[in-house]
């Protein structure tokens, strides 16, 4: 509890983005099309509802001079009205069906995407693997996806364990990640910015804390970033961070995490090679500061109960050194 309070909120990160996770604030090609469709359908349906309400209120409150059920005349009139209303219903839903069909066609991405990324969802974090024709140039991140603005991005969605759903409402509609199957989603960010996404299919205990961020940036900064990510983990220069590296190697950390360039090559948890460069930790739970890193390492089970990272007993010195080392892995 205390640790949760102590950890700084991620508001700084989110400021300036408005509804960073909202279907009504689209910043991507697909999401804009979808927003337009949503607004049109909602408008039409609102009109229909209003019309029904007007008739309802009128029917309830209108003055009745004659006796009820006054014979065939009014029934015939009503029959015409009801048939007309049914015909209008058919027309409207046909229109909506055709409209949604054309929107779906518009969502089809380009045949040759500029970037392809493998997404492996697992309980309860996101693994993003940037694959290259040369496997030596592969690298991976966790819970943070960088993409170039204005380019077609294709994500290949797979699941390690249960069903998850990849959803960044500001950029595109959602698509499930299903064990044993691969789904492909193509999208394009129109403006640079930080967009939050979240697992949208219930996936177990910490479904609520399975967020990620998409950072859409200019082509150049994207390249720079990717270049930096391909490097091995930064060598510590200060005494404190060197000590932290030693702690990392000596304690249980390396069994689950990888830091390229060191002996640590565990694959159960996220790759930490450049964890210092990420904006958040623990699948979007905490802003990435030395303090929150320390809080997380000290007691991950209080911040995110039931996740797969155990409480590793560390002295306060070790904790300080380890979090300094983590922070230095830019």
């Amino acid at each position, binding site marked *: 509890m205390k640790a949760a309070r102590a950890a700084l909120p991620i508001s700084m990160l989110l400021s300036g983005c408005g509804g960073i996770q909202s279907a009504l604030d689209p910043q991507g090609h697909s999401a804009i099309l979808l927003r337009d469709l949503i607004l049109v359908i909602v408008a039409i349906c609102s009109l229909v509802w209003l019309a029904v309400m007007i008739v309802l209120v009128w029917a309830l409150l209108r003055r009745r001079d004659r006796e009820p059920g006054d014979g065939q005349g009014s029934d015939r009139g009503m029959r015409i009205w009801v048939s007309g209303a049914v015909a209008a219903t058919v027309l409207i839903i046909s229109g909506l069906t055709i409209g949604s069909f054309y929107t779906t066609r518009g969502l089809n991405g380009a045949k040759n995407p500029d970037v392809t990324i493998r997404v492996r969802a697992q309980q309860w974090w996101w693994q993003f693997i940037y694959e290259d024709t040369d496997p030596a140039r592969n690298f991976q991140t966790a819970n943070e996806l960088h993409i170039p603005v204005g380019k077609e991005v294709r994500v290949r969605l797979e699941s390690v364990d249960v069903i998850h759903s990849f959803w960044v409402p500001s950029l595109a509609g959602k698509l499930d990640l299903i064990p044993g199957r691969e789904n492909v989603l193509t999208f394009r960010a129109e403006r640079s910015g930080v967009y939050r996404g979240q697992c949208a299919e219930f996936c177990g205990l910490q479904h609520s804390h399975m967020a990620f961020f998409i950072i859409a940036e200019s082509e150049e900064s994207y390249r720079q970033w990717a270049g930096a990510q391909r490097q091995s983990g930064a060598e510590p220069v200060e005494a404190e961070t060197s000590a932290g590296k030693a702690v990392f190697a000596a304690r249980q950390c390396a069994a689950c995490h990888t830091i390229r360039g060191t002996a640590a090559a565990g694959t159960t948890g996220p790759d930490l090679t450049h964890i210092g460069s990420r904006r958040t930790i623990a699948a979007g739970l905490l802003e990435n500061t030395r303090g929150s890193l320390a809080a997380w390492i000290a007691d991950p089970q209080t911040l995110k109960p039931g996740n797969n990272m155990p409480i590793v*007993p560390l002295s306060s010195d070790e904790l300080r050194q380890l979090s300094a080392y983590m922070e230095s892995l830019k």
Partner: protein
Amino acid sequence: MLPAVSNKSFGLFFSAGFLLAALTGAIGLGWLREPRQYRTDPPISAALEGFRLMPNAIGGAPPEVYFALGKPYEGTAYDLSQGKRLYSWFGCASCHGEGEGGAGPAFLDGWWLYGPSMVSIVASIRDGRPHDMPAFRDKMTIDQIWQLAGYVKSIGAYSAKLTAPSRNDAPQTRPAENRAPAAILFNEGSASVHPDQGPSP
């Protein structure tokens, strides 16, 4: 229809029986009650380290706290299934296979080189054993080791526990843990069942 004469005694008899059945049901379910523990308090973790091992490193006494907790690692489905995940995450299968053994001894045959007690299994994992069983004390936390030990102990059982894990969503190499008795599933193969692993310490 019950005859009206004996209705009263019948009623008494059956309502007693019905209550008894309901009670049995509740006890049965209560026996399986599993308030899952996701977070082991650091003091408890520390206490779990403090088991006493016999001088010959076979058998010993678990710490008091283990009994106070109700021996969770052997009996609760959640801990056993976590143990199963740890078994694959920490590469146990590379030597012990899916329990049928390999470079390391088998578990499914119910034969324990260092005795079947939880404590000696925990000690084997934590501290390692001769003939290439590595120590995992730097790779796993103590509560993970207890979870793993509970799982390892359970797959050697001669009768399947109700709380034992079921099959995985993966290619099947052997029947699931809850389909024991393990001895029947154990395929002796060409190797001898209890290979001589050197002198017991």
